[in-house]
């Protein structure tokens, strides 16, 4: 038998069809669209000058959607590529300038899509098998992928209309391959399997069902996972001489932990939600930041929170005025009824509604108010 390169005509299965491609493309477009929008929302949450305080589950939901839509996109992308795989072997390879440009744009699209899904998945497992910085590169890749998808839609719009405009149809007579309907169902089954296998990281009632949830059920310390240990932050347990410094224009005040504990304490049930897609609810007790500022005579405004961490890009965070005023924003001393462990931020930490996990600063040493 003589081997030769495949030709487009060699692929005779029913599923290599514009009706299947357009439907999978639509679903894939929705999945990537959700990833892009929720990714931008997360970007604003970490770098923007405004962030909502309600609903308290806002970031938990947007970031859960981000990660789960990305996971659903894995089988959708593979199925879509398989549907249109024969076109890779269309001859002539380029033909015209327009064809060559289209092929180039599809190459960028597939490369960027793979890059986004692969780097996102590894990041959710806190694994970084690369030398670039994940956050800005994943952000740049998102724009690259989004642009390539929009361009692809522009190039394929007549085909998309043709495909979506006609019913999937019954199996071709005499065909031995999977029918178009069976192929779509198979893809849907794989999406469901991938979803159930991972969604427990963020969907509470799936915690015990999902074997791949990177957040373990009831794991961690004091009933909550730790994303950065005191050891990796190089923080040691604060002694009795520890003081929280509060600065505002014209004055400052220092408070011991006993003095913080003597202020009126409030208890709130709030989720903590991480950019990696996991989230969990805990019961937090401490002093609302707004009441703390009032107690020491500081004005309200924007508050820059500085941790006692020696280094790290999340050493400081900014509480926007809305969050400073929010009664749910706590300088927490306790979690789930016990003093914070060192890994959870002893002597005190910030917990506020719907803030990205990395901005819920632990081991707080200083609050600086800018009215």
């Amino acid at each position, binding site marked *: 038998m003589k081997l030769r390169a495949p030709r487009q005509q060699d692929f005779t299965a029913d599923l290599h*069809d514009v009706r299947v491609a357009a439907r999978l493309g639509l679903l894939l477009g929705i999945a990537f669209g959700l990833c892009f929008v929720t990714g931008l929302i997360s970007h604003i949450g970490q770098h923007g000058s405004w962030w909502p305080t309600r609903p308290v589950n806002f970031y938990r939901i947007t970031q859960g959607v981000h990660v789960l839509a990305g996971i659903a996109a*894995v*089988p959708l992308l593979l199925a879509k590529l*398989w549907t*249109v*795989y*024969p*076109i890779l072997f269309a001859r002539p390879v380029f033909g015209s300038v327009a064809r060559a440009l289209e092929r180039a744009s599809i*190459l*960028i699209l597939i490369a*960027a899509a*793979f*890059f986004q899904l*692969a780097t996102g*998945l590894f990041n959710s*497992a*806190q*694994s*970084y*098998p*690369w030398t*670039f910085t994940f956050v800005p*590169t994943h952000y*740049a*890749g*998102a*724009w*690259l992928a989004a*642009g*390539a998808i*929009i*361009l692809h*839609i*522009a190039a394929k*719009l*007549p*085909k998309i209309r043709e495909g979506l405009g006609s*019913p999937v*149809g*019954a199996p071709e007579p005499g065909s*031995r391959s999977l029918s178009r309907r069976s192929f779509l*169902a*198979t893809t849907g089954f*794989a999406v*469901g*399997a*991938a979803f159930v*296998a*991972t969604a427990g990281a963020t969907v509470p009632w799936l915690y015990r069902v999902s*074997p*791949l949830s*990177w*957040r*373990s059920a009831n*794991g961690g*310390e004091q009933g909550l*996972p730790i994303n950065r*240990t005191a050891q*990796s932050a190089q923080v040691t347990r604060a002694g009795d001489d520890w003081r929280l410094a509060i600065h505002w224009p014209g004055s400052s005040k220092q408070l011991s932990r006993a003095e913080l504990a003597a202020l009126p304490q409030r208890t709130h049930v709030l989720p903590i939600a991480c950019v*990696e897609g996991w989230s969990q609810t805990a019961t937090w007790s401490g002093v609302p930041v707004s009441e703390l500022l009032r107690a020491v005579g500081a004005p309200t405004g924007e508050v820059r929170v500085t941790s006692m961490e020696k280094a790290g890009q999340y050493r400081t965070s900014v509480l926007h005025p809305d969050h400073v005023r929010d009664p749910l924003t706590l300088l927490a001393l306790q979690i789930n009824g016990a003093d914070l462990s060192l890994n959870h931020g002893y002597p005190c930490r910030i917990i506020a509604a719907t803030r990205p996990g990395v901005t819920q600063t632990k081991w707080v040493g200083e609050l600086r108010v800018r009215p």
Partner: protein
Amino acid sequence: MTKTRVLLGAVGTAVMAYGGWLLLTQATWSPRYLLSLGAWLAIGPPAHDFLLAPTLAFAGVVLTRLIPRPWRTAIIAGLVATGVVLLVAVPVLTRPMAGPANPGLDDRNYLPGLLLFIAAMWALLLAATAVYAWRGRPAGRAAPSPRRSSGPTR
């Protein structure tokens, strides 16, 4: 439609260019950085086109010839879903270049749960197919195809 396409094309190109510009301006111009970024950006298309897709094509040809309906669809669906779940599992199972696992995150033994999940999925799938095969094909499924696409409409 032409206007829409031109507009979409222009927006897409601009958005893509912005992504490319971001990648370029934040790049560190060292071989170590560029090789890693280049590899992760470039590996997807050839890995799919010349490795994964041919393997799947071969497997598909063999399976469709060996397995009768309705088991064929169920077994292909099971294999596809198993492959996808294993693919998604690669990061938590391997965790290359990761720090020590944090308490409560990535800190369990994933393999037993994963195998149990896959076994349960297959049991469900095969049981459903057995019920389907036992009952026979439901009536009214063989409506004639309203329209057959012709030519390279892919």
